[in-house]
């Protein structure tokens, strides 16, 4: 569980916050509403999550409800995995 959070955090830090200190990003930092993820970054993040965790996002799920923080992201991925388990 922790591993998933760390993987997601690592990806966001490297790809979208280069040069930023790791403690600038925690589990509840707003990503979309906080302006860290723009439209292309959001698509790239979803592509990453799909490849990394073997899940599939529906068109309407590229929203703050599902992706606005590391916690929201990992909750969504876990829920998707449980659905298909």
């Amino acid at each position: 569980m922790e591993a998933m959070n760390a993987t997601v955090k690592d990806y966001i830090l490297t790809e979208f916050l280069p040069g930023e200190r790791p403690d600038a990003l925690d589990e509840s930092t707003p990503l979309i509403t906080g302006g860290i993820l723009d439209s292309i970054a959001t698509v790239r993040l979803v592509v990453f999550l799909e490849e990394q965790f073997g899940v599939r996002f529906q068109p309407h799920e590229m929203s703050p409800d599902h992706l606005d923080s590391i916690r929201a992201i990992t909750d969504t991925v876990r829920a998707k995995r449980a659905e298909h388990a």
Partner: protein
Amino acid sequence: MDFTISDEHRLLRDEIIRFARNELSPGVIERDRSGVFPRDLWLKCGEMGLQGLPVPEEYGGAGLDPLGTALALEALGYGCEDGGLTFAICAHLLACVVPVWKHGTEEQKQALLPALCSGRMIAVNGMTEPGSGSDAFAMHTQARRNGAGYRLTGRKTFGSNGPVADVALVYALTDATRGYHGGVTAFVVPTASDGFSVGQKFEKMGLRTSPISELVLEDVCVPDDAVLGGVGGGTALFTESMEWERICIAAVHVGTMQRLLEQATSYARTRTAFGRPIGKHQAVAHRLVDMKVRLEASRLLVYRAASRLDHARDIALDASLVKLFVSESLVKSALDAVQTMGGYGFMTEYHVERVLRDAVGSTLYSGTSEIQRNIMAGWMGL
């Protein structure tokens, strides 16, 4: 990578080229001059299956895979000298028919696809607004909940096929606070609906046989089943349609570049100056070689992207790359063809000045070159 073309694809290509040359190209100079949409030819294209190339046969389409679709459109771009008609087909097929096929409910697909594929029904894509082009998701058109449906209000512009369309694919805000991220929804709106009107019609520099207009929505009421692809799903749906459009319109451009190259080469082999064919002058030969290089590079990019279109998740990057390179190549090659043909190239009856005028639009529609570069920069992590 192996793009061996199957016998089936070869036959289809030859058939489309023959059809386009015999049926679609004659009379293009007059149609371009008067700016008329050739509805009779549009319907003939429907009989040929062009408006439904990738759609499964059970819905009235031709059931081609994306590479087959690109090959068919390349053949159309090569054989059809009416660039406006080809563009009208692409706008209908790629930005409207594809999303209905990909995201429609079974009822929506059965109700719409057979007529859209045969060309009996014409569609317009309504995304751009007077105040939002490149920044498309900064739109103002709203869809508010209204009983068992939605009430749409707003103004779209530059809708290709707008003046002749029976149905519009309209993108509207269902949640303005979310915008791009789940706040945009796609609606299928019959143009005969109360409150729907065409608005201003525009005259254009090129692609003049493809009519274009505003779409005005004044309290247009639609039922729930007008929603295409789920409430809030408009962004993903539009993005996917642009991937198809950017790659498959580029396929048309490849065909057009082939025609330009053949025309310019044969001119250079026969026109003489200073006692020899102009193609023997190195400066002219090099220009034609550059056209050849652009053509072959464009073709490879299109085939590669088309063969990945239905499964690669990073296809948006390919689509922007293809769109940028091929549209800019088309503009350069059209200019080169005019230059090679000298004063004759500038004269309407030689058919290349029209291709140049048509080509200028290609670095603007489906996202400008600057926007393609921005998208690619985003994917490159810049």
